């Protein structure tokens, strides 16, 4: 049997000397969608950035395996080339760089070969149609002057173009109004498939009304304290994170 797609094994992470993640364990197989929920300060974004290889986050213990290989010593670009993707909660502006130019470079970098102009254009417009994006969007500068919804849609567009095997989406739902949320979630559903693993990191349960996860986990104070199915998300929605806090203490 081949190795699982993605394994987080006893991951401990320090930020500026303080331990934020205190032993996280999680396995994602191909075709699975996992939701990771947790209150502010539970370590969700630390986990997302650490998995993608942000140098500010210091791993003190544990392993992260992608297709059986430990990726923790690899820089972010190498992780991306091996099939990882992170959808950012706060995508960064790159002034003067057009979306289509950036995407072309990203596709070239992650797939190791330059796509032909016509093929790239065709693919880009297909994916944009899938995400209900106007073509003129590709001529804008990356994230510059984008609304919250446009930024998140741009993240999903990048995922669509790069076709990662393991996608981590960090609060892709935050800051979206209900229409934007629906269309972003629709896009994500279309991209999920039997070969892709997805980890949705979210504070709120509402995106799970559109994307049904196979598993739900609750991160609290740097550890996964509960795992279950959709019913766990609903219970959280009904009882709030205080409920988990109470449980965690006992």
């Amino acid at each position, binding site marked *: 049997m081949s190795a699982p797609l993605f394994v987080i094994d006893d991951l401990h992470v320090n930020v500026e000397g303080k331990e934020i993640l205190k032993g996280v364990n999680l396995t994602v197989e191909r075709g699975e969608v996992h939701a990771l929920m947790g209150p502010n300060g539970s370590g969700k974004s630390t986990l997302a950035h650490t998995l993608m290889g942000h140098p500010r986050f210091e791993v003190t213990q544990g392993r992260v395996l992608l297709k059986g290989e430990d990726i923790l010593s690899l820089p972010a670009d190498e992780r991306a*080339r091996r099939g990882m993707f992170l959808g950012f909660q706060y995508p960064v502006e790159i002034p003067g*760089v057009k979306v289509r130019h950036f995407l072309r470079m990203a596709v070239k*970098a992650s797939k190791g070969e330059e796509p032909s102009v016509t093929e790239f254009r065709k693919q880009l417009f297909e994916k944009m149609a899938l995400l209900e994006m106007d073509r003129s969007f590709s001529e804008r500068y990356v994230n510059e002057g984008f609304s919250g919804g446009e930024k998140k849609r741009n993240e999903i567009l990048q995922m669509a173009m790069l076709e990662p095997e393991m996608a981590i989406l960090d609060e892709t739902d935050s800051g979206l109004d209900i229409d934007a949320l629906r269309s972003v979630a629709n896009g994500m559903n279309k991209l999920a498939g039997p070969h892709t693993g997805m980890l949705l990191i979210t504070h709120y349960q509402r995106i799970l009304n559109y994307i049904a996860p196979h598993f739900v986990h609750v991160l609290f104070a740097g550890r996964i304290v509960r795992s279950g199915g959709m019913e766990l998300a609903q219970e959280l929605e009904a009882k709030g994170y205080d409920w988990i806090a109470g449980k965690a203490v006992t």
Partner: protein
Amino acid sequence: MAKKAVEVPQADYARKYGFRDAEEPLFRAKPGLSREVVEEISWLKGEPAWMRDLRLRALEVFWKKPMPTWGGDLSGINFDEIYYYVRPTDHQVRSWDDVPQYIRRTFDKLGIPQAERQFLAGVGAQYDSEVVYHNLREELATQGVLFLDTDTALREHPELFQEYFGTVVPLADNKFAALNSAVWSGGSFIYVPEGVQVTVPLQAYFRINAEKLGQFERTLIIAEPGSYLHYVEGCTAPIYSADSLHAAVVEVIIKPGARVRYTTIQNWSTNVYNLVTKRAVAYRDSIMEWVDGNLGSKLNMKYPAVFLMEPGAHAEMLSLAFAGKGQHQDAGAKMVHAAPYTSSVVVSKSISKDGGRSSYRGLVKAYPGSVGAKASVRCDALILDDESRSDTYPYMEIDEPQVSIGHEATVTKIADEQLFYLMSRGLSEAEAATLIVSGFIEPVVKELPMEYAVEMNRLIQLQMEGAVG
């Protein structure tokens, strides 16, 4: 992120531009500056007495003026060691086939004949002190356009020459303008008759080959009413351990309703002091545009100016400077509003990396009576690492209350979050930094003709290579 300095920053420059030819000049004046050397240059060129006398007057001014201390560090220039005149060939030709083999090879490597075939209306090629090749498309010549090297213009069009030479940049303007006036050689002379549109660019290429050379080309452009011209210049040099000096003077006269765009891609090797005086006078409803890319040289001091002399005159400066290891780019613009309803726009973008320093130094001046004048200055600096530096010296002399002046300046450090974002999409750290830089300069690059935009991006990429690990 971790930055690893690569110890061969000039390797690519060396391969593409930094090669040298064995020196086989026809004539080389002895090093150092004297009346004798100046008289010899004038005699060799067979100049009229008035020009020889002007040179000698300029030499006195040069000796008298102190070294400027307000800009970059000029203490490394040894005027006694420089060769002020090196003549490569005995005559100029109009066919590349007639250029001496070794010089032809140099320009082939630099892609000049190919560019001429593909997208230029005329080309001048200067090698050390003299222009060795010059050609203009026939249809422009028949319309009365003159595109000559400046020495030939003095011989063949003495009246036109004398009417304008030194009127925009007087010989005593500054120490290096005086030096140029004393020992000038080569450069471009362009005359565009009334109403003639030169829609395809004319280009001059300046190549320094000899070690310790001083190159002092002199350019004079006259655009008659309603005419249009786009002139482009490029320059490169071999890498030597000893320094070279390039001190050009450029004068541009734009008559009513005319428009001139002057594009420079300065890519000297990093042992060249580039101390250039560029100035235009713009008359009623005319437009002057400087597009100034400064990538090379050890110290670059260049502040192209436009004197807006009559109502409706408009000036633009798009400036791009890249200061790498050991480089100081001290660049900017001077916009002088001397008439009502004149307008000027300055956009400056500078990048500093590996300890390089870039300074924006600019002046906006509005004379009394320049009612309704508008000026805007925008300077953006991007700093790539902690060793590098950027400064802004924006001077304003506003002596007319009814003007509108805007100034904005930003200094940005390349952000780790930007690098991480791009790297998370598979770009290496170097590719990510290069992409950020190319976006930063996009507002200037998009103003270049396509071929030069490609060239500029390629040069920036070269500068970036080996910058970040």
